[in-house]
């Protein structure tokens, strides 16, 4: 059901019934160490390349979802998701291991939000079980966007660290008997580009997109920001979160008191991870390992998850293009 220009409430209830996550060793030593399901010991994780390892992350979380939900692969209608690598190969390479239809999506680090929104549409269209999975890997992202791993470069004061890990959520048309989060509404993002060109400062490039989507969501649903226990962005990092809060206050949208950011949650102080985590796996890892558990246990009732993406490539940066940002808002709540 359309609520506004960009916002929809699902016509059919879409429950987030099961989650699974996997994280790199740094992530597993960070703030979420007590929540992460499974941690790998080294970046290559016994694979011939980091890309293969990222693909294996997806195999593992998908299998864990199938196991925990007691579903066979034939019962799953679709795998949705993506990653940051060219032609999203880790996603499609992982999907070839399962006899399940696959829809690859790409919106950089906002892909998890995009997946949840699309899953909700698919449920409304008649599907019953959908897996949403996004992943990222520090080593594959460095090669994709920056320099070889062993090159002795110094991070800039605004750089963030790509999260190594993956999160997968099972979206179902029917919920269990016990308390279960569901998708309450979703707001599709518009590309917002305020001319930021610094590829090492993606928080600043994405904050206006997050602002635009959050403002649209609150306006179109008629909700105040306090309706949500937490508004949690994807990977703005410390600077992006500060900029977003300033924009929200300046434009009179809300006081930003319940604003948080997955990127700021992942790593602990002193882990030398710049201004926080980033990557397509950042919001999915934080949601699946942490936020979902808080929703199920009742510590949170309603959150607005707003994964944010910077839609740049290494070539577009070199060609002097500014960085287009995007954010999807998905309300996840327990009724």
């Amino acid at each position, binding site marked *: 059901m359309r609520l506004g220009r960009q916002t929809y409430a699902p016509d059919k209830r879409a429950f987030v019934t099961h989650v699974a996550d996997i994280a790199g060793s740094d992530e597993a030593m960070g703030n979420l160490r007590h929540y992460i399901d499974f941690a790998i010991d080294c970046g290559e994780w016994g694979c*011939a*390349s980091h890309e293969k390892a990222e693909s294996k992350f997806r195999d593992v979380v998908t299998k864990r979802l199938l196991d925990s939900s007691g579903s066979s692969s034939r019962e799953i209608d679709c795998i949705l998701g993506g990653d940051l690598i060219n032609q999203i190969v880790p996603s499609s390479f992982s999907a070839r291991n399962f006899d399940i239809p696959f829809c690859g999506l790409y919106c950089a680090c906002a892909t998890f939000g995009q997946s949840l929104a699309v899953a909700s549409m698919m449920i409304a269209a008649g599907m019953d079980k959908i897996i949403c999975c996004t992943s990222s890997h520090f080593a594959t992202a460095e*090669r994709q966007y920056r*320099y*070889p*791993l*062993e*090159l*002795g*470069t*110094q*991070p*800039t*004061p*605004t750089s963030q660290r790509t999260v190594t890990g993956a999160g997968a959520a099972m979206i179902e048309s029917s919920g269990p008997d016990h308390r279960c989060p569901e998708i309450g509404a979703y707001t599709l993002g518009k590309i*917002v580009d*305020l*001319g*930021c060109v610094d590829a090492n*400062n993606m928080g*600043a490039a994405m904050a*206006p997109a997050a*602002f*635009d989507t959050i403002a649209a969501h609150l306006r179109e649903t008629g909700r105040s920001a306090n309706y949500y226990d937490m508004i949690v962005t994807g990977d703005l990092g410390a*600077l992006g979160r*500060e*900029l977003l809060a*300033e*924009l929200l206050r*300046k*434009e009179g949208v809300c006081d930003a008191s319940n604003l948080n950011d997955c990127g700021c949650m992942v790593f602990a102080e002193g882990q*030398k991870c710049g201004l926080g985590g980033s990557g397509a796996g950042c919001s999915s890892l934080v949601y699946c390992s942490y936020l979902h558990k808080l929703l199920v246990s009742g510590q949170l009732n309603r959150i607005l998850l707003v994964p944010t993406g910077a839609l740049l490539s290494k070539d577009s940066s070199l060609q002097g293009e500014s960085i287009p940002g995007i954010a999807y808002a998905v309300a996840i709540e327990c009724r």
Partner: protein
Amino acid sequence: MIDAKSYAEIVKEATPKTQEARTLFAAFGIGGVICMIGQAVFDVYAQFLNADEKTVSALTGMTMIFFGALLTGVGVYDKIGYYAGAGSIVPITGFANSIVSPAMEFHNEGIVFGLMARMFGVAGPIIVSGVCSSVAVGIIYYIVGVAA
């Protein structure tokens, strides 16, 4: 929605600055230590090899390149670079690092199209500008030499 210009001002104000006192000191200190090691290698060669200064210089360069490549291979040089910044990029060990690191990174794409094709991805601009400027200096040197 805020306009791009006012947003750029907010970003500029909020963006943390490089702590130059710390980074310059680290670059100077670590870069200095690398150069001191280079000088020590030079002195040892000059002392124990019966060779002229030019040969000793070349041998020193080769030795430092070897150290740079070795430290890159065992995964230490990037950690030095994290603290040293330009201090470990400017010496010849940094040049070795800039060639060995892409060679390691891209070996998965095969020897020819991976390792060989892409190992100069970082150092390429340095080599091109080095060759071009040496040609320019050579021409100037020739003209000045003829005039004199």
